[in-house]
């Protein structure tokens, strides 16, 4: 079985996002970028499936400008077999991403697609569900455990009240939650090997899908910071402040 995994290049999760001075977007120039953490988990899961003999090929896909290649090289260094880079300078909305991925699924014919549950830049949490919808496939979002059994994926999902178990007809789309696994670090020899793994570059226009934006960005701003608080010296002082100053207990 072939597994298609996706990865997005995003602002490093440990770097605080700053709005550009002209208010047109978030500053991504000269800041540290990284692979979306949920996508690392998705790739790790695919690799573990291949190691367990459940899959024989992992194709990593990303959509973005030239530097997206670095993110795909990371996926290859972790263990993906080859990469597809859909090249565009534009920001593609989740619906457009799903349409691009549908086109690649039709040409690659994977038995399973694994994605991150959300990208930590836009925080939309949409593309996986949208891809499943466009393909008419089952979707397993926020998964924390996956067992493949023939044509069925038995999954555990993280939901608001706890955990939910579903049996999904394959092929299907899964999106990873934090507890699915702990992704490996790429070793130096594997980073070297990844440079020779195949990477297919596809200009987005050649796919013939409509990725025109449906939303107009009106503004971006930073929320007002919280006013500075005070340090208290003891539990008694804390309880006094909560009772008499904040009046919350």
């Amino acid at each position, binding site marked *: 079985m072939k597994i298609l995994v996706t990865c997005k290049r995003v602002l490093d*999760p*440990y770097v605080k*996002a700053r*709005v550009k001075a002209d208010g047109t977007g*978030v500053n991504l120039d000269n800041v540290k970028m990284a692979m979306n953490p*949920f996508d690392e988990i998705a790739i790790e899961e695919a690799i573990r499936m291949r190691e367990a003999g459940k899959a024989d090929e992992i194709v990593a896909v990303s959509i973005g400008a030239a530097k997206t290649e670095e993110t795909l090289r990371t996926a290859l260094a972790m263990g993906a077999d080859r990469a597809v880079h859909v090249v565009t300078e534009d920001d593609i*909305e*989740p*619906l457009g991403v799903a349409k691009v991925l549908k086109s690649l699924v039709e040409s690659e014919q994977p038995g399973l697609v694994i994605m991150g549950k*959300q990208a*930590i*830049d836009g*925080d*939309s*949490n*949409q*593309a996986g*569900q*949208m891809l*499943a*919808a466009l393909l*008419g496939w089952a*979707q*397993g979002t*926020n998964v924390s455990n996956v067992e493949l059994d023939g044509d069925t994926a038995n999954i555990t999902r*993280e*939901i*608001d*009240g*706890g*955990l*939910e*178990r*579903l*049996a*999904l*007809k394959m092929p299907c789309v899964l999106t990873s*939650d*934090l*507890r699915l696994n702990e992704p490996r670090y790429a070793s130096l020899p594997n980073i070297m090997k990844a440079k020779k793994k195949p990477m297919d570059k596809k200009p987005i226009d050649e796919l013939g899908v409509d990725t025109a934006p*449906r*939303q*107009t960005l*009106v*503004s*971006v*701003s*930073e*929320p007002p910071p*919280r006013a500075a*608080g005070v*340090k*208290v010296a003891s*539990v008694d002082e*804390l*309880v006094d*402040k*909560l009772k008499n100053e*904040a009046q*919350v207990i």
Partner: protein
Amino acid sequence: MSILIIAEHDNAEIKGATLNTLTAAAKMGDSVDILIAGSGCSGAAEAAAALPGVRSVKLADSAEYANQLAENVAPLLVQLAGDYSHLVAPATTNGKNLMPRVAALLDVMAISDISDVVDADTFERPIYAGNVLSVIKSNDATKVITVRTTKFAAAEAAGGSASIDSIDGSGDTGLATFEGQDLTQSDRPELTSAKVVVSGGRGMQNGDNFAMLDELAGKLNAAVGASRAAVDAGFVPNDYQVGQTGKVVAPDLYIAIGISGAIQHLAGMKDSKTIVAINNDEEAPIFQVADYGLVMDLFDAVPQFTAALD
């Protein structure tokens, strides 16, 4: 404008998140219907009919909706969508699972986790873990929206008398089968709607020590939450997690205990009215958002705090 709310419910009753969603929907237009899709869900439908300002309740009571699987509910919404300008659900794990699937079937973008309604087409939503607020205008004919419930007050739950219209089921797609649930049992208030939240982090050291927080929470009628670090370490179940990709809370009082304050945790709690941080590391970033910071070993501070509330 005609708005359809997809209710959060457990067949017997509607969940609190539906009330916040109703407040958000009322800012989009004044004709608001509510969909109850479930099985044996007339109880939830009657509760929805009692919400003030609701025009009618659409009741889809059919076996294929018993567990509200997105694969089965999405086609129903596509059937209904022609009558509405807005389809709106709370940004719960259910809403987040369902609505993008509906949007893609309608060939429209979804608008996730809105924090304000500017006008019927324009919405504010947090991005980058809440460090940036974006305002976007949707150019799609149908707006498919999930609502950040902490940003909208809960509507009244009684006083209305909407009609209940039964609608036929759309059938089982057979794509997914519900196998079971493991729901966390707790006597404490629900995390996302509690007035007080007591959260523990890596500093709690193990799951057994959370009993100490339960005791404090009991005195404050508080819910208990946790940071990602505490959940990843297995101290408490996943549904305790407060943060960018866990639950977003905005109680009157949030008490962070042994939590360092990573960006993704702050994203889930920084709209709380009053924040208390107890941590023995005075450099911990949590103190930058805390109204009251106490630099102290939590194993000394928490029992003293609990005792002081007697």
